[in-house]
Structure formats: structure tokens, C-alpha cells
């Protein structure tokens, strides 16, 4: 069953039209840009990066939302 499913996907990719292959390249490049460039370099979780404990995070947020 598992082999059949894998074969189904492999055959599908093999018989794909050229525009389908272009789309897959776009998807892979996009995912690389999103997860390996944007997420890792630019979009770090602000609270998790700056504070070690939930209590410190809560204190910071309370300070921010009540100033």
C-alpha cells in the first residue's frame, strides 16, 4: 500500500507538464525564502529571544500594555 502511494506520487511528478515543474520550482524557492531567509534571519520570536521564562515575558507584556 505504502509502495503504491509512493509510486503514485513519483509517476505523477514524472508525467507532469513543464508548467507544473515550473510551479514546483517556484513553490520550493518560495518556501526556502520564507523559512530559511525570512524566518531564520528576520523573524525571530521577540519575547522568546529576549526572555527566558514565561514570568519575565508576562511582566514585559504587562509593562507594555499598561504604559
Amino acid at each position, binding site marked *: 500500500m505504502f509502495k503504491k502511494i509512493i509510486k503514485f506520487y513519483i509517476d505523477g511528478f514524472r508525467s507532469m507538464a513543464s508548467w507544473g515543474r515550473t510551479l514546483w520550482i517556484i513553490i520550493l524557492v518560495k518556501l526556502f525564502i520564507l523559512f530559511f531567509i525570512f524566518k531564520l534571519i528576520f523573524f*525571530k520570536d521577540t519575547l522568546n529571544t529576549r526572555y527566558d521564562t514565561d514570568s519575565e515575558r508576562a511582566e514585559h507584556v504587562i509593562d507594555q500594555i499598561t504604559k
Partner: protein
Amino acid sequence: MVENIDLSLVDWSRAQFALTAMFHWIFVPLTLGLGFIVAFMETIYVKTGSQEWKRITKFWMNLFGINFAIGVATGIILEFQFGTNWSNYSWFVGDIFGAPLAIEGIMAFFMESTFIAVMFFGWDKVSKKFHLTSTWLTAIGANLSALWILIANAWMQNPVGMKFNPETARNEMVNFWDILFSPTAVNKFLHTTTSGFVLASVFVVGISSWFLLHKRNQLFAKKSIVVGSAFGLIATIMVIFTGDGAAKDIAKHQPMKLAAMEGLYQGESGAPLMIYGFLSGSDEERLKEPSEDNFIVNIPVPGMLSFLANGDFSSYVPGIRDMLYGNEKQGILSFEERIKRGHIAQETLKEFKTAEKNNNTAEYNSLKEKFEDKEWLNTYMKYFGYGTYYDPDPQKLEANVLELVPPVTIAFHSFHIMVGLGTLFVLLFILLLFYTMKNKIENVKWLLWIALWSIPLAYLAQQTGWLVAEVGRQPWVIQDMMNTRMAVSQIETSSVQITFWLFAITFVGLAIAEAKIMLTQIKKGPKEGGQ
């Protein structure tokens, strides 16, 4: 207080979020609607066994695939931004947002990715019925994915089913079903998804019209127009009904948004609905210099706004000034009073945290009781977000009140453009159906041109719809509880500017790729076997 906050950081963070959300929303509505249209077409193919319907199904399925592939994962950037640019907000709502988004992630991955593969790879490899089931499940799965993010958005417009925990500064879910079935969530889901059906229908009839105008694939085009315009007509009627439900919900939970949508500065009984109009002066001038008439020109329908808001032609609809300065007769609390109450709630939270730090158990327990007392919550905590605008100087406080009014001009025009285009689409679908059934559609060139040029108009209607929903509720991120200034992270404005432009470049690249691949496939037209 207001002057402590870097407004350029707030504005750039908002601009980045708006850019991403608007770009993401170019792809989503077409996926939501085209999935069902393709499923209907394939159902006809399976029922009739007609190869022409298989060809039609495959052509539109390919366009669905292109749109899906380019749009997939563009929404994930919004989640990146929550953690980086809007970390206070993310913390504040974490538990409420976490559940729907996790369900969305799991459902989207398993349903869409599995069945989309069968849709595209499964022709001639699985049975007709299994393939058809996969197509339907892809369409249903895409719409169910949208359900969860729309529930999260609806909760921000009308926060229900949660309890604020002052120890963690987080809202905790107490009733999932209240969140799932809140009238705001039900209306938002139905209105948004059905509007996606309308866009997809316009897309189908518009492209089919292009084929007719070029005298190509006429049978294919006519059959596509029948499915597209019938589905579009039903969807537009659903949009009108769900829009009516949404308006009543807005009147109840976000009256300021409704007043901004209609440019209603002074409330009245039997309030008119504007067919269209042009507001005089700027938003700021209209607030600072009250006038009897705020329009240069307008076409009002007497009593209609009252009916739209409350189901009663003579009912009272509060205007912007009623909310800013209060209206005792109508039981409307002024924003100044709300700010004072919000300030008390914020001060109480600060005192609670100090008591916790100093191990002052008596004070701690006494303050904690307040956060569990329904009356205190309803009197003060309900207005928590307003506290940001507090200032002990009465003159500054009076000036701060005006900052709680959303951009009226944007909300007004967005709302009226959306409604106007929706009405145009009803007429378009009726006329297309009429002439196609009469078998004269290829001769009605003006209608075919209108259908073709309605494609960008349908996208405009989608974007203006979100402008009404999101700009109309400013400055609130969570209605009355958290404004944009409270929600934003303390990060460098320049870093938000850099990522804004990086996104803009990436999005332009993706949009060009989508347009190029899509147009190439459309120009090729449907071929035998659809490939």
C-alpha cells in the same frame, strides 16, 4: 500614555501586515470558489460521461492549481509577523489563537495536500468516483482551512469565550464553542467564503468571455459561463444575506465601524443609507469642526441604515459623535469615560503585578478578586484598551479621544465600492445566464467585455471588503481590549521597514510569476485531455 509610543513603528508594522494580508488575499478567494466550480464541472462529467466536460474540468483545474501553488504558504508570513512585530498581542491572545491555527495547519496539510495530489495525478489512475470525491474534498478542505483563521479574526472583532488571567497577562479560552459559534464568526465565515465564490465565478465567466470575444472554444466557454454565472448568482445572493447579518453584528459590537462605513457623524432615528457620496473636507476637519451636513454630494435612502443595523426603519443608529461624547438618552457611554475606566483597569493590573512581586499577599488576593468579579470586569476591564489614551490633563485627554475614530473616508468608500460591485455582479450573472440560455451570448459583445473587465473589479471588491473590516475597526487589534499601540513589539522601526520592502519585492515576483503562467495557460486554452 499615548506620547510614549513610537507611532512610526506602529504604522510600519501595520503597513507590513496590510501588505502581506492583501497579497495573501489575492489567492485565497479564487481557491475557495474555483475549487467548488471545478467540483461541479467534474460532477457533470462523471454523471454524463461527456469528454467535453472532462476537458472543461481539466482546464479550470489547471488554473486552480496555478493559483494554489503561487498562493500557498503566503499566509504563513502573517504568523511570522505575530511573533516578531506583534509579540505583545501574540502573548495576550496566545491560547485563543493557538487552537484554531493549529487545527487549520493540520487540516490544511492532510486534506488539501493529499486530495490535491489525487486531483492532479489521479486522472486515469483512480476511479472516476474516487477522483471526484478528492476534488470535492479539496474544495471543502480549502474552505474549512479558511474557517479557522476567520474564527480567529472574528474573535478579534468580538472577543468572547475567554477569561483574562492577570498572572500571565494572557486570555485563556473558557468556551471553545462560544468562539466557534459566535454570530460574528458565523457571519464572517459565510460572508468571506461566499464572496470568494463570487470572485471565482467572475473569474470563470470573465475568461470564458475572452474566449468568446476571440471566437475560440465557444462550446467550452458557453458551458463554463452557465456554471460560473449560476454558481455566482447563488453565491452573490448568499453574500447579500450574510452581509446583512454582518452589518447587524457590527451595529451591535462595533458601532463606531458602522458609523464610519456610512460617514454618520451625528446619530439619528430612521438613519439613511448612502447609495454613494463624497464626504466634505478631511477626516480631521470633520471631527474638529462639526457640521450638519458632512457630504458634498450623496444619495441617501431614508431609514435604510436603521433597518440594516437593527431590522427597524425608525430605530436609532449612533453616530461618531454619540460615541465620542456619549448620549445619555440612548445609553451610550462617552469614550472619555471609557478611557478613564480603562485606565483604572490598567492601573489595577499594574498594582496586582507589584503586589505579586513584593509578596504582598493581602493586596494580591484582594486585587485578584477584582479580575474574577463579573461586575468589575464589565465596568472596567471591558474597556481595558481605552486606558492607553488616558492623560491627567483634561485638554490632552479630550484630544486623545479623537484618536479612537477610524479613518472614515477609507471605510466609507471601501464599503460602498464593495456593495456597489456586489450589485453589479448580480446583474452581470443574470444577464450572462439569460443570453447564454438564449444561445445569443457570443453576439452580446458589450456584455462579454464587461464580464472580462469585471475580473479586476472582483479583486477590488475583495480587497475593499477587508479594508472595511480591518481599517473600520481601528485602532483596535482586539475590540476595546487591545489597540495597535499596545500590541506592537518594541523593535527597531528600520528592521520592519527592511522586511516590508523585502516582502514587497518577493510578492511582486510571485505576482508576475502567477500572471505569466496563468496567462500562458489561458491563451493555450483547453486541449484534448486538458493538458
